[in-house]
């Protein structure tokens, strides 16, 4: 049996596939204080439901928010930061830019909390830009610095010396000195966490690494232990932000790579869902309670970004490019000073939540509108776990929107949706445009509780003609874990002009990287001849301050020439132009991946009439309520097709298919919605 577990804020999702292809997916409440408890609870449920022996569990892939939460809840370590003397404040000064453009009352924008002034100490040493030692490392200044920090209760150290990415010797010496005297102290070296130039960015990543290390460490060791106690001896694999799995050991060594572990699983899941159904280019739209996550998948590859954002701080770790827009089902609708209808960014969240949750929330939300319009079934929301109150929804919209605007509640409710859709569609467009893509060339995959509800409207706005709704959009992150490869990525700063270097020289460097990567693979006793090795170079035009990751193939005729050509093409896609100017290789990267063997899961479909009833839905464009059939997804047969207007319900979401759209169920159970030609 293969098991994928994704621990989220409220629920822990499980996706299991047994040898014979039987699939089992379910959620259990998360246990924030010690998430491993929730996981174990789930394992027990699996065992009791399927009756398999723990030993039969062959794969245990895990996505976790523990790293992110440690930051959000500020529950990380007491980090002390050692820097080159004279540069201890780099972390606080940052890049001196601000995001609050139009404000005069500014807030700090650097992650000072990681190590406030008192916990930042300079050390006597200096390495020059050419790697030469300008001022040798002074052992005593290291000892003195650490002692000073320990008095302040520091339990983890981050060390970032200038130009350690060129020559790490001083950082290594410092680490040696420290561990000799304080063997148990946790130490993160910038030359290992992120050996790339730009001291502020490197300091931030390294400090974050040290900050979450103890938390992640404790959590993962607890989990390993607990699993062993349960008799599960499958290796624990953890999803990294780049979209690949890594063994527990690696994950604990480099915790900073676990940010976005959860969403990465989701993207991989969507990718796989699309690929197996023959859709290589996807825009995934995951609309939850408070936000809407958007990701692009191009040629069945997730788009990566070199720098991600954690709690408003940008952190230089390669991660799947997931963008959040601040509007979702819980977004509150309101009227601005000039009588304009607005939706969000403020959200009612899950507590008190939308008015219809009946938990004391008064303000009208998108979900309330959905209910008023007749798109949702008050008795069958989230598998019926939550009884909705239509009255409250109606009142809220009446009072706060309809009356002030002097329009009918129906109009007001559909107005809320139209505004929401106009906002989201612009958000989605800008995400794809920024990546250099035209949304019209993509299919839209609707995820999350509210995704399928707005998917067709969004598609219309974006002139997208295909919408995909997976069988279990709710647990895609978990199932994604089972499709993710094991991946190890090691990189090194190179900094040479392309025509100032040779394929040989580059190959030499890459070989060194491969040694490291192989080691990591061996740690997970991966079958070395199944491992795929790919190389990348971060390249920029001379004088450019930003670079692009370009694939590097050393087997072709003139590898460097091809590299250059590929760079030009990519640059043209992302930046709209490319000129045949000199370029520099900033970093070299070697990625080793062991592709997963996706489990073949068989499909279970209920027999019988799939139409479970009908509802009166208000359709704005037709100025009236229509009687719309409601279909139970679990009864939809493969190959069967439907035509809008129709509502399709399933445990974890509701799909709204408006007039002009038709739908059909593919072999894999995927629901495909297509815009009809006649209507366009």
């Amino acid at each position, binding site marked *: 049996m293969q098991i994928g577990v994704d621990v989220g804020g409220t629920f822990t999702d499980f996706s299991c596939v047994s040898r014979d292809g039987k699939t089992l997916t379910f959620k259990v409440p998360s246990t924030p204080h010690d998430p491993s408890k929730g996981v174990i609870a789930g394992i027990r449920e699996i065992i009791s439901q399927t009756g398999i022996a723990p030993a039969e569990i062959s794969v245990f892939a895990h996505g976790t928010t523990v790293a992110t939460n440690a930051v959000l809840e500020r529950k990380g370590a007491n980090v002390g930061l050692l820097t080159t003397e004279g540069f201890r*404040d780099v972390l606080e000064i940052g890049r001196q830019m601000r995001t609050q453009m139009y404000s005069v009352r500014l807030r700090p924008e650097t992650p000072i909390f990681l190590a406030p002034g008192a916990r930042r100490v300079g050390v006597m040493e200096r390495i020059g830009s050419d790697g030469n030692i300008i001022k040798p490392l002074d052992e005593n200044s290291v000892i003195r610095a650490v002692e000073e920090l320990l008095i302040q209760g520091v339990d983890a150290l981050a060390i970032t010396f200038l130009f350690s990415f060129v020559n790490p010797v001083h950082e290594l010496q410092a680490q040696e000195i420290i561990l000799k005297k304080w063997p148990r102290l946790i130490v993160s070296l910038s030359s290992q966490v992120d050996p790339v130039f730009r001291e502020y960015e490197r300091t931030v990543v390294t400090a974050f690494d040290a900050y979450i290390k103890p938390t992640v460490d404790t959590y993962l060791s607890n989990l390993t232990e607990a699993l062993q106690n349960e008799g599960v001896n499958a290796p624990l694999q953890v999803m990294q932000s780049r979209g690949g799995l890594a063994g527990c050991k690696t994950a604990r060594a480099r915790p900073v790579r676990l940010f976005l572990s959860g969403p990465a699983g989701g993207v991989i899941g969507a990718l796989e869902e699309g690929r197996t159904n023959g859709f290589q280019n996807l825009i995934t739209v995951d609309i939850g309670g408070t936000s809407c996550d958007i990701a692009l998948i191009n040629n069945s590859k997730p788009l990566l970004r070199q720098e991600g954002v954690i709690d408003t701080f940008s952190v230089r770790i390669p991660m799947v490019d997931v963008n959040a827009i601040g509007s979702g089902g819980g977004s509150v609708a309101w009227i601005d000073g000039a009588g304009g209808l607005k939706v969000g960014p403020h959200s009612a969240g899950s507590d008190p939540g939308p008015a219809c949750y009946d938990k004391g929330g008064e303000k009208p939300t998108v979900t309330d509108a959905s209910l008023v319009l007749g798109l949702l079934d008050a008795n069958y929301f989230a598998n019926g776990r939550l009884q909705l109150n239509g009255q409250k929804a109606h009142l809220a919209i009446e009072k706060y929107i309809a009356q002030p605007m002097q329009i009918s509640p129906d109009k007001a409710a559909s107005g809320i949706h139209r505004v929401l859709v106009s906002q989201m569609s612009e958000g989605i467009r800008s995400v794809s445009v920024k990546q250099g893509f035209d949304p019209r060339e993509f299919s839209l995959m609707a995820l999350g509780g509210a995704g399928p509800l707005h998917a067709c409207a969004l598609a219309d706005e974006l002139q997208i003609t295909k919408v995909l709704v997976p069988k279990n959009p709710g647990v895609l992150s978990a199932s994604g874990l089972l499709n993710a490869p094991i991946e190890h990525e090691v990189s090194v700063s190179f900094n040479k002009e392309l025509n100032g270097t040779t394929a040989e020289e580059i190959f030499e460097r890459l070989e060194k990287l491969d040694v490291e990567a192989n080691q990591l693979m061996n740690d997970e006793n991966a079958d070395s001849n199944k491992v795929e090795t790919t190389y990348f170079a971060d390249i920029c035009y001379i004088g450019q301050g930003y670079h692009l990751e370009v694939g590097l193939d050393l087997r072709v005729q003139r590898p460097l020439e091809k590299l250059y050509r590929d760079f030009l093409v990519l640059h043209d896609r992302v930046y709209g132009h490319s000129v045949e100017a000199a370029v520099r290789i900033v970093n070299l990267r070697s990625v080793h991946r062991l592709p997963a063997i996706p489990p073949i899961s068989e499909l279970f479909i209920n027999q019988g009439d799939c139409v479970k009833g009908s509802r009166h839905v208000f359709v704005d464009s037709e100025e009236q309520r229509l009687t719309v059939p409601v279909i139970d997804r679990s009864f939809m047969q493969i190959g069967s097709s439907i035509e809008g207007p129709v509502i399709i319900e399933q445990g974890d979401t509701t799909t709204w298919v408006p007039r002009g759209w038709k739908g059909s169920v593919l072999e894999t159970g995927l629901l495909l919605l297509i815009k009809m030609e006649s209507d366009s």
Partner: protein
Amino acid sequence: MKNAAQISLDPVLVEVVRNKLEGIANEMQSTLFKSSFSPIVKEGLDASASLFTLSGETLAQAIALPFHLATLIPMVRKVLEEFPLDAMEDGDIFIMNDPYLGGTHLPDIALIMPIFEGEVPIAFSAAMTHHQDVGGMTPGSVPTNATEIFQEGIRIPPLKYYSRGEVNGTLIKILRLNVRLPDSFEGDLNAQVAACQIGRRRLISLAEKFGSEKIKYIFSELLDRSEIMTRDAIKGLPNGMFSHVDYLDNDGVDLDVAIKINVNVKIDDDEIYLDFTGTNKQVKGPFNLMPSGAYAAAYFAVHAMIDADVPINGGCFRPISLKLPERSVLNPEEPAAVNARTSTMKRVAGCITSALGKADPPRAVADAAGELLLLAFGGEREDGSRYVVGELVASGSGASEGMDGVDVIETDGTNCMNLPIEALELDVPIRINKTELRKGSGGAGKFRGGLGIIREYEVLKGEVIFTHRGERHAYAAQGISSGGAGALAQSVIYRLDGTTEVINSKIIQKLQPGDRVVVETAGGGGYGDIKERSQQSVIADQVNRKS
């Protein structure tokens, strides 16, 4: 738009269209950033895209540098004046940059494109980019010692860059010949064209969907709404006259003469008049500011102070009017030099903010240092190749009720990154020996002003031409409600032979190997009486080496 009556308006549609317009502006913006060549656009974000109504009012603008807010307005007006609407044709794109015809300084070149649905004009799309070099006496086209516009680069009057979709070959030939980096120059221009085209394409499809008469009406409706909201916000302020005076150190030419900025803000129910009578006459050096720039600074300051969540468009500007005395530093006469006007803009924005603060004490913010120290090092590398590196160093922001000022952060209209030490040292033979918060530089108070920075540079090889364009060396950022002033900026050159030279705000000097320069930028003003500062804040400041 008198046909308003006939058009029945779906209130939701107005909001939908507004979201569209914002989206369109943003899409234009990212196209502009994406396809530009020069680092100054990509890292400095010094470019902006916007939509204009047929009457030349801002319809929607993507948020870039606040100082780009509205700087295009006078240029659009000028173009409309030179080429009346009915003379324009689909596919025309107009170009200009001349400050004395509506621009702010020569590197900022604007492209403006009329948009037609069929025969009917509906709006303009426009894009402005700060170009890396537009010729003139020094590379980069911002000569600190310029005394005439003619030294600052090529001046472009309103001309057709495209005519009915055809590029003006003659013009581009002339332009290319007169700039130092013709390829990246043309590349950036094309990026601007691309941005305008996006705006055109999407506005047309919007018009096709809802009808051009209707959306034109919605446009005016949107402007009216922002106007209403702005007026409401202004009503929230007490009537009266509030004034503030601040100074720029000097104009870079006459080093011992300060430049006075004097604003009298008159709040009259729902309108704001900004009268700059008493402000310095125009100066020799390049610190003169065009009215367009003064307006931008004013719009920014007012918008930021009333900080109501008002959608930004021309409507926000209607209640605000300025009086800029002729031949003053804020309304200079040709051919005064203007390239260094940013410092002036920042100080003007600061003055207005402080004056408005007096109207609304709870919302008041102490002076930000508003010093964006410009340093440039020019010399030869070992291989004989020439280099020029520029560096913009920020200072402390002002404190306000409940909030200490922020240390070393970009304030008001500009927002530039600093240069990573490792990037600089990899590129040129200069070493940075120190980069630290400047202890004790924040103005004391119940809430402390933001700190400045200390940065030390050492020349390693070859003679270096060193440019230092500072501010706040003579006039400190003032605190409010008995908060203390921020520390003055100070910079010193330490020669290898042991002699030292104190830099008086603005100089161009030669440095030799072994010479060191230590710059300390100014601190922001404090808020409230220091005696009221909480005990733990006092302690925290001590342990964190802030005071």
